[in-house]
């Protein structure tokens, strides 16, 4: 007999949010200032043990969403540990000029907290961060958050059935269940390039933007032409004396149907929330259909590639530049880029694409293999994130002292991306093989959150000491996932951040978002080892 626990959907509130963008600047600077509320929540004593029912690590979209849904499900004793001084995760850190989401805002938001006031179809990072701040206020999450708590280790105590988190300042937090919501794209550092330490000019990483630096009249290099790079370049080209763009591999770029939301549209969504839900559904299915072209090699793949090629052809007239910008891998293998202003920016008189390999960075700039030293005042590194594919984001010790980092060294594995055998009562958001390539990350995130809530409620209601996924169930699941991944475009031969150095894919989910949501809908207790307290 299957034991299933399903979340009570009636508690899912669909509250409307107040207009956000008009009140706050488009890009919020991360000044490091701490608000009074944050100060209050940072007061704690080193060595003191704080207890809760649930410990959430990270106050980004996933951590806050989990807290909201847990509260709605009646779980109130929650602590969120956040290493920074503000909420928002990726959207707090990525405030570079032009930062925006490449999924429409009506889909890149929670279905249980829709915002009728998105100012554009694809909102900028400032507006998304405002939305996150509103979530915090709307659902009164701030008292739950402990800011400036960098978790340095998470250890499971088999005797008590509790997770014990230690922070950098020496505090201890204990909880019956823990949720890892530290985010897959939360760490960024300068790349290990030869001569990087010798450059005397200014260095900026896209994920740690320096808003105090004035680009006016400056000679600027941008290294990297991924999702961040193509958003930064058009903005810098408006300001800088010149911008040289260093590209290693061109990506597929699709047009971005971005437009300002008319007032009548906002009013309609205010008065008829069902209209916004209908639009969200249409956007969802539109993106779902893209999976056929982007995840798998099908006739639709050639069609999507043709759309991208036509976009390039329409925007770039010079055949050599077009050649330089034409990818030689199948669409979907790497992240698909969305932009209307990247190609035009590259062709501005003060902008130049450089595809020569970088030989070294030097005192005055960048030396490329064609023998020329390109001199700059500032180098912008749009080189992406330190994605944790081998090992765990922080030291996690499970039953019998097993170390997650060791076990994941050869590639991370989990059951349904969320539970790992030997690490009971622990739930991962954006765990192994949960990444979408064609649809909104928040759609996947909602499924993960609701699954975690079911698991946590099971632990609390049944008073379980231990709820641990069975190793053989996890193994079977991963065997099937890897078999399915072998047939996807991600594993079709290109190098991407989706794959580890030896080509193992522990990041992406090989299927439709609908498939993922279906597998996460029911919490099957038969797949877990449950021990009463």
């Amino acid at each position, binding site marked *: 007999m299957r034991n299933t626990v399903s979340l009570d959907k009636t508690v899912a509130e669909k509250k409307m949010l107040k207009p956000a963008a008009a009140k706050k600047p488009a890009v919020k600077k991360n000044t490091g200032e701490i608000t009074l509320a944050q100060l209050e929540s940072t007061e704690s004593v080193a060595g003191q043990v704080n207890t809760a029912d649930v410990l959430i690590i990270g106050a980004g979209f996933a951590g806050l969403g989990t807290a909201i849904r847990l509260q709605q499900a009646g779980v109130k004793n929650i602590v969120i540990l956040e290493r920074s001084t503000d909420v928002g995760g990726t959207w707090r850190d990525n405030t570079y000029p032009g930062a925006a989401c490449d999924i429409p805002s009506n889909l890149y938001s929670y279905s249980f907290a829709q915002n009728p006031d998105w100012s554009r179809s694809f909102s900028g990072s400032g507006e998304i961060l405002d939305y996150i701040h509103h979530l915090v206020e709307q659902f009164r999450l701030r008292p739950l958050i402990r800011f400036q708590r960098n978790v340095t280790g998470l250890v499971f105590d088999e005797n008590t059935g509790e997770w014990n988190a230690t922070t950098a300042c020496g505090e201890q937090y204990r909880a019956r269940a823990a949720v890892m919501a530290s985010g897959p794209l939360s760490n960024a550092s300068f790349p290990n390039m030869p001569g990087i330490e010798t450059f005397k000019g200014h260095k900026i990483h896209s994920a740690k933007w320096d808003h105090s630096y004035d680009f006016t009249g400056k000679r600027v290099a941008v290294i990297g032409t991924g999702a961040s790079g193509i958003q930064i370049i058009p903005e810098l080209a408006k300001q800088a004396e010149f911008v040289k763009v260093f590209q290693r591999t061109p990506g597929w770029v699709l047009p971005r149907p971005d437009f300002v939301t008319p007032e009548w549209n906002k009013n309609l969504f205010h008065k008829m929330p069902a209209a916004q839900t209908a639009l969200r559904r249409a956007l969802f299915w539109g993106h779902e259909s893209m999976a056929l072209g982007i995840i798998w090699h099908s006739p639709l793949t050639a069609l999507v590639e043709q759309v991208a090629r036509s976009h390039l052809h329409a925007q770039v007239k010079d055949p050599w530049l077009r050649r330089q910008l034409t990818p030689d891998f199948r669409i979907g293998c790497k992240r698909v880029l969305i932009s209307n202003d990247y190609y035009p920016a590259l062709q501005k008189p003060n902008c130049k694409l450089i595809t020569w*390999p970088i030989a070294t960075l030097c005192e005055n700039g960048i030396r490329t293999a064609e023998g*020329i030293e390109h001199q700059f005042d500032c180098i912008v590194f749009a080189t992406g994130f330190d994605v944790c594919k081998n090992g765990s984001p922080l030291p996690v010790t499970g039953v019998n002292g097993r170390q997650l980092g060791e076990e994941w060294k050869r590639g991370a594995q989990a059951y349904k991306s969320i539970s790992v055998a030997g690490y009971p009562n622990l739930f991962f958001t954006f765990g192994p093989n949960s990444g979408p390539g064609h649809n909104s990350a928040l759609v996947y995130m909602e499924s993960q959150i609701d699954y975690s809530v079911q698991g946590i409620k099971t632990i609390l209601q049944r008073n379980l000491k231990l709820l641990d996924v069975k190793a053989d169930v996890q193994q079977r699941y991963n065997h099937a996932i890897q078999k399915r991944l072998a047939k996807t475009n991600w594993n079709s031969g290109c190098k991407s951040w989706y794959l580890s150095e030896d080509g193992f894919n522990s990041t992406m989910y090989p299927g439709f978002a609908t498939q993922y949501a279906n597998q996460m809908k029911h919490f099957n207790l038969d797949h877990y080892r449950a021990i009463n307290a």
Partner: protein
Amino acid sequence: MAMIDLDKMLVKIKNSQWALADIDWDAPGAELITEEQWPKLKEFMADLMWIEHVGARGFAALAKKAPNDTLKEIYTYFHAEEQRHANAEMALMRRWGMLDGDEIPEPNINLRLVIEWLDKYSDDMPLETLGSVIPMLEIALDGALCKFLLDSVKDPVCHQAFDKINDDESRHLGVGFTVLEMQGHGKLYQLVLKAMGTLMRPTLILGILSYLPLLNRMRDNIVEMGLKEESLYAAMKKFETIGGRTEHGRRNPWYQIISRHGRIVVDRRNRFYHVPVDAAVKLTNYIPPSILPPIPTWVKELTWKPTA
């Protein structure tokens, strides 16, 4: 030549990068170019620079066809390195007062035709075709032109630059002959059938038609400058010797075609070949430059300036 480890070669290439800024282009020695040498050297350097540049475009096409990531990256570097050689040779021309402001030397009509062909069709050529022709061009360059230049020019800066260029070229040749041998694996009849199929492609025939007169024109230009024809032929024979050292090299039909063609090129008595090709050289002189499309923008990447 034994097959080389391409992964190790890639590391070596990355560790051997140099820049124009490493050379002091204003150092003494430019005055060692004699007045008599100057006009001929100007033409020689322009031809040399263009051959490097055309070779660069060939490597760019090869990078698209590389069967694995390592070779793709190697070819991407070689593309840039050939461009670096062309840039360095322009810097030498600039040093010797052979450039008019920022102008790049005018390519001759046969070079223009080859540039057109490369621009339009080289990306569609199979790896084995371009991968076999390029070592031939490289060895002719390395073995004859550069040697001749260093024998006749005393300027130390020129020697300094060509020490670096020749180091690069030796790696290009090592990879070139390894790839030539790699293409000799497989069933012989399949290799031959594939080569015959490629040979019948109209785009390749167009390429051959633009390549043959270029070879003869270059030979004439070089000989006119005082290079002994025999040293050019000796260099071309090197291709036959090195490429044919292993069974797989010899099994590559393109090696056979190119080395046999090399033998014909060096045999001045072969009137059946040289009369029509020399006539084609003369005929191409009558092509008005105005009917050719504008020079592709990749040509405009050339620069003698060490910094930008």
